[in-house]
């Protein structure tokens, strides 16, 4: 991946961005970041990220909304919560990463075939339709919709798991799948 960095002028920054983040559940403390870097230091994934968690916090504060929402960082965050338990200012960094992912999805700025949003889409669809997840079907869908060639790499593993009784073919479902739809009616899209 190639990362371009352009100069940004003060007038182009989105000063409302931090307010948006702070208005999310768990985002309230975002103002208190002291830029100590503990989050980046503890994050097991920061070395693969384009911006470390500390930088993300700084960018939120300064209004680099586009850059943050387009970053790989938010999708790389695996929600391990290491940063959250270590942050001296009690900032719920993991929850903020979640909030950023949601904003990126809402504003439709994540790459369409980038596997993580694809996984998210397929996963939520399956839960809404059946109430439960069938891992085998989910993985197959994920590969088909993001990188079909991978299927060949992993078909061996899939067969093995099937033989070991660890993958099922039938969809898993709750008794009355419509109940989930009723439950979620009226909630979707509301923060």
């Amino acid at each position, binding site marked *: 991946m190639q990362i371009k960095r352009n100069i940004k002028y003060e007038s182009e920054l989105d000063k409302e961005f931090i307010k948006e983040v702070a208005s999310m559940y768990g985002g309230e403390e975002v103002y208190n970041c002291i830029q100590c870097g503990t989050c980046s230091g503890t994050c097991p994934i920061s070395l693969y990220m384009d911006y470390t968690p500390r930088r993300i916090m700084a960018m939120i504060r300064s209004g680099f909304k586009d850059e943050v929402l387009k970053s790989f960082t938010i999708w790389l965050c*695996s929600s391990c919560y*290491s940063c959250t338990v270590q942050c001296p200012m009690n900032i719920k960094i993991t929850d903020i990463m979640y909030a950023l992912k949601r904003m990126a999805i809402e504003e439709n700025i994540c790459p369409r075939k980038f*596997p993580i949003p694809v*996984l998210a889409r397929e996963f939520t669809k399956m839960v809404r339709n059946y109430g439960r997840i*069938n891992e085998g079907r989910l993985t197959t869908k994920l590969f088909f919709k993001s990188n079909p060639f991978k299927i060949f790499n992993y078909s061996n593993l899939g067969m093995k*798991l099937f033989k070991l*009784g*660890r993958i099922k073919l039938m969809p898993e479902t709750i008794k009355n799948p419509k109940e989930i739809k009723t439950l979620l009616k009226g*909630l979707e899209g509301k923060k």
Partner: protein
Amino acid sequence: MKEYAYFPGCSVKGTAKAYEESLLAVFKELGIIWNELEDWNCCGATIYMSVDETISFTLSSRNMALAEKNGKDIVAPCSACYLVLKKTKDYIEKYPDLKEKIKNSLSSIGLSYSGNTIVKHPLEIFVNDMGLNEIKRHVRKPLKEMKIAPYYGCQIVRPYTDVDNPIYPEIMDSLLESIGASVVEYPVKTRCCGGSLTGTIEEVGLRLNYILIEEAIKRGANCIAVLCPLCQFNLEAYQESINKMYKSNFNMPILYFTQVMGMAFGLSKQSLGMKRSIVSAEHFYPV
């Protein structure tokens, strides 16, 4: 003895079948009474939270409402389920508007949730509710040769729980030691396995797991004990790909801690799901 509402979650019914088998066998041996939470639904794991948080909390609330209806505590063996349930409880308490939304939603399917359901991981039941002395009484076989790296992963120890220290927990170490296993010092015990990254950004996922296995070997371990379906899957199922990518030669058995307990209790291989491993651990089986 208390009764628990057992909430398996999707993985424990699928790729982690051996976890369910060994867990329930151990419950039976210890006289713990459980009933599978009737008509449970997916907790949404880490994924639903990145799409719609309110829905994620509502999904979990349905499970808690179901448990509450029967007046039981939930036991959740999967770390993701465990975390999501705990987090839901925490958030409902903290944000009244969220509570209200969820309340309305639940009432549309005839359920209600007061916020009182207690969520527990099996580890807590074994170590805190039963106590190690009681567990010890069930040991029948010595666990020889086995040198275990105890791997906790992330979500069981943080942040909505007070199970143990969030960075260097020792609760599983002490449980395994009490049943006669030798446990090695394993400083990366709560370092992330990548969760769903192995399936999406493979390069990163494989490297995280490579580091975990390599460190275990360096610490003298010949197997890793885990307590989460996803950790087990990542560490075991991708070993072949890791070996290819890093020219390593790993052949590391990744056991659920409940399988280790079952082995020490002398339970049958069959009942512990030992045959479902990709990397066999049967050579450790005590005779």
